[in-house]
C-alpha cells in the first residue's frame, strides 16, 4: 500500500460526485481530503493503480506521494 495524490487537472470545476463514486467503487481509502475537491490524498495498493486510472479519465491525475528532506550541508560518512 502507498499514498497517491488524486488531482484535478481539467478546466472548470471537478465532478465531485464522479470522484466519490470512483473512491467508493474502487474501495480507496481517503488519507487527507483537506484540499478536496481538487486534490485528495488516497491510500491504495500498487496493484490497484492500473484498475483506477481508466476510471479517472483525462481530467484527473494520480501521482505517488513524494518525500522532501530538510536540506543539510553536513558532510556524512558513506554507510557501507
Amino acid at each position, binding site marked *: 500500500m502507498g*499514498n497517491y*495524490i488524486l*488531482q484535478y*487537472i481539467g*478546466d472548470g470545476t471537478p465532478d465531485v460526485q464522479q470522484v466519490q463514486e470512483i473512491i467508493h467503487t474502487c474501495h480507496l481509502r481517503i*488519507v*487527507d481530503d*483537506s*484540499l478536496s475537491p481538487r*486534490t485528495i*490524498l488516497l491510500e491504495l495498493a500498487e496493484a490497484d493503480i492500473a484498475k483506477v486510472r481508466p476510471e479517472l479519465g483525462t481530467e484527473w*491525475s494520480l*501521482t505517488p*506521494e*513524494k*518525500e*522532501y*528532506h*530538510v*536540506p*543539510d*550541508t*553536513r*558532510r*556524512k*560518512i*558513506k554507510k*557501507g
Partner: protein
Amino acid sequence: MANFILLPATQTQTNEDTNPKVKNFLTTVLEPAVKSESLKLSARMPAKQEKKISVKVLDSIQEDGAKLVQLSDDELADFRFSYPGFRIIKEKFYKKAIIYHEAIEKKAKKSQVNNKLQITVTDKAGNPLKDIYIVAFTDFANRLGDSGTTTAKGKVTLALKGKRIQRMYVYPEHSYWGYYRASFTAAASLHIALTSIDINYKDVLRYFYPTASWPSIPASIRVGIIDTGVGPHKDLVVSGGMNCVKDEDPKDFKDNGEGHGTHVAGIIGASGGVHGVAAGVEIFSYRVFPVGKSASNFYIMKAINQAILDKCDLINMSLGEEGEDEGIISYIKQAYNAGVLCFCANGNDDRGKVNFPASYSLSVAVSAMGRKKTFPASVVETSSIKAPYGKDKANFIADFSNIGPETDVTAPGVGIISTFPDDRYAIMDGTSMACPAATGMAARLLSAAPEILAMPRTQARADEMLKYLSVRIRSLGFKPTFEGKGMLLSE
C-alpha cells in the same frame, strides 16, 4: 545554446487570464519568425544598461500556443526576468523503455580500523559541550571515516583507519561556530575548543545587507515560510500559519525543534538581537516537516494553497529534491496566478543540478555564495570556498551549492547567523539560507512599490513583481549558471 518550450503560465494556449505581453509574444511577435530567423529581444536591465537576448523560434504548436525556441543557457535568467509569465520547459528526450540489468558490485570491504581517536569538545573556557556532531574522513573522495556525537562530558571516540585524517568537520547545532581541519595526523586524543557566536559579527549576509542599520520595512508584506515551523524566539513575531503535517495540530506551527525554519525566518524578518533583511515583514509559518522525518509533497501542496488563501505576497521554500513533481507544480502555478512569487533553494549537492521546485520556471531559483573573511579562521565555512570567484575575488559560489541554467539569482548562504528555537542563535550554511536572503531582499525592495502590492491578485501582479525586482539585480561577475542574473541589491 539549448532548446526550450515556452508556454503560457496556465493551460497550453493563451486565454483571457494570460498576460497580454505573453499573448502578444506567442501570437504576433514570434509567428513570422517561425521561419527560424533569430530575434533580438530587449532585456530588462538596470538604468543605463542595455542588453539583447537572442531567441530563435524552431517550432510552434498552434498560433497562440507553445513555441520551441533556441536560447543560450547564459541568457535564460535574463529572459525569465524580462518576459515573466511564461512557463519555460527544457526540451527533453525520452529513450525506449528497455531495462538493462546492471551488475551491482557490492563493496563489502571490511574497514581496517586500527586507530581510536578520542576527541573532547569544549567552549573557550574549557566547559564540555554535549551533542556536538563530529565527522572525520580518512578518505574524503570515497567518504570513508567515522562520525559521532559528544557525550555530556564533551567526549566522543572515533574508530579510524590510520592516523592520517584528510578532513575533520565539527558541527554544533547552535550557539557556536563549527570547526574544520584538513590534512593532519591525529594523536590518540584531540581537544577542540569552539568559538561562541557573537551576534554582532559581520557575516556575509550583513556584509551585503547591513541589516542592523536598516529601518523596518514600511509596507505590510506577508511572507509564507514552508519549512520545519518557526520559533519561538524573542526576535521573531509569527503572525499566522498552519501545521500541514497529517495528524499534528494545525495550529501548532512553531518549529518542530530542528531549527531550520526558525533560522530561515530570522534571515527574513528577525528584529532584536539579530536583524533580518526585511525586519517588519509579516511572517506566516507553514510546517511541513514532521520531527526527524521528510515532508510529503502533499503537505507542501497544502502549505502553498494555505499561503495563497492567507494572502501571502512571497513564499519561501528552502527545500527540494531531484525530479519534477506535477502536484507541486500545479500549486506553484496557482500561486503565480494569484500574484504570489515562490522563492526556492537550488539545493546542496556539491554543484549538482538545480533541485525541484527551484528548477521549475515559475519559481525563483537561488544559489548560495560566500565571501572570504566573513567567518573566523578554522571554521567549517572555510571548506566551502571554491572557484569560481566574482569580480571581487573575495566572493565565491559555495562549493555545496547546486548550479545550472535554471538559477535566477544568488544570495549569501555561507556562515549565516540567525535565530534558533528557544531564543538561541545558530550558524547555518546552505542554499536554504541563501533563499530567505533573496526572499527577504525581495520583500524589502517590493515594500517600496505599493502600487504593485495593491494590484489585483492575478498573474499580472506576479509579473510586475518580477519586473520590478529584475532591475534591482546586479551581477557579481559569476557566469549565469552560478548566479543567474546576479544578486538583489538595494538601490
